[in-house]
């Protein structure tokens, strides 16, 4: 189990490298495949809560290191209304929240029904991006949802979700390699 947990951490780190190769789809409202989030969400349903929280911490910290903007220091007499950014570290909490959401389907996943978890990754990505957008709107004010935002949320969730079977397959292979059972309930005889 320890070796499998360690392998999920390494897989998450590898996802950060793979993410660099995935460009935004400019024709689809700049939507993208969020490999890092997908690996985290899929791994979250296969591990215990402490490991999921560790993955959320690593994933959130590195994601913010990847994305966060520097503050702009300009003359406040000219720029009277500076635009704030989200604080470094907010993604850690969002990752954890989505991880707990994924763990809600853990009993079904343990029975071997990974398809429901695969669908839930799409929902989780949608909620993650929506929460991010709401946080940005809260910090900056003026909550406006445009059609291109809806398209960005939808296409990003859909495109990312389509790759979830591949990530589950990878996790399954890793679990086999390290003698860890992803579906312990599936092999148990059913009660009459």
């Amino acid at each position: 189990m320890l070796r499998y947990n360690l392998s999920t951490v390494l897989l998450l780190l590898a996802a950060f490298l793979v993410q660099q190769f995935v460009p935004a789809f400019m024709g689809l409202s700049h939507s993208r495949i969020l490999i890092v989030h997908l690996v985290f969400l899929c791994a979250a349903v296969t591990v215990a809560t402490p490991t999921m929280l560790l993955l959320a911490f690593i994933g959130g910290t590195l994601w913010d290191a990847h994305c966060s903007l520097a503050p702009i220091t300009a003359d406040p007499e000219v720029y009277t209304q500076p635009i704030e950014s989200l604080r470094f570290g907010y993604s850690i909490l969002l990752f954890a929240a989505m991880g707990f959401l994924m763990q809600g389907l853990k009993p079904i996943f343990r029975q071997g029904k990974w398809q429901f978890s695969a669908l839930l990754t799409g929902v989780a990505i949608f909620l993650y991006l929506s929460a991010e957008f709401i946080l940005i709107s809260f910090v900056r004010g003026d909550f406006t949802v445009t059609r291109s935002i809806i398209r960005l949320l939808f296409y990003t969730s859909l495109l990312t979700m389509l790759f979830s079977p591949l990530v589950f397959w990878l996790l399954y292979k890793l679990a086999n390699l390290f003698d860890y059972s992803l579906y312990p309930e599936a092999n148990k005889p059913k009660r009459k």
Partner: protein
Amino acid sequence: MKPLNLIALILFLAGATWALTRSESVVREIQVAYFKVIGPTLTVGSALETKARALLEETRHSKELETKLSAIEGEIGRLRILESRYDDLERENNELRHALDFKKATNFDVVAAQIIRRHPTTWWQTMEIDAGEDQGIGIQLSVLSNDGLVGIIDRPFKNRSSVLLITDEKCQVSVRVEGSPEVGILSGQRGRFDNNPTLRLRFLSKDAALRPGQRVFTTGRGGIFQPNILVGNIISVEKGPLDSEALVAPAVNLSDLGTVFVVLSETN
């Protein structure tokens, strides 16, 4: 709740609080370390992205040519392909000459850089260029193209920098409208992921007499941008009870940028 889960949750919350309370300098150190580790991958990734974009462009052009070929047969079709290739080369040649002229004619001490990645983040309008601290680039320097203002340096690293584009809501520019006394603050609009994003010019006077097509230039106030850099053209004006706002089309086609110039300092 199991004791182990409770301990893990407490440790997690402590870690999250630690991250959320880090100062800007610590965040920068974390980012420098992160990009140092993924740097080599980033270079390969950028090269692949450039190739993929070129391939997509090529595919699009091929389809256009295919339509033409269906109408014209044989030799004419072949000549048209050759002609289109010649046009591409000529356009590229003109662009490079234009860029060279820009560098010679400008009053700024600039560093030329190539774009290596576009929009690497989800919500922010940013791009990455292949010049950084080693080329003398620092934080909050203006980035221009030969058509006008592109944005500012957000984070410089050793050999690359991220640029916050003018289409991002966070990039505010103090501007004036040509042929009028109007000045205001220009910024991008949140959640606009269109191919032709517009900018919002705020804090104009209540009765601003502006017309579509008027050019918008930087004022040079505020300590970030140099004065008299072209930013865009007025598209429309909306008059409110207290002030007016205008929509501005960026002068630079941000979806078709190759070379940009980072302004290091103003020269005489």
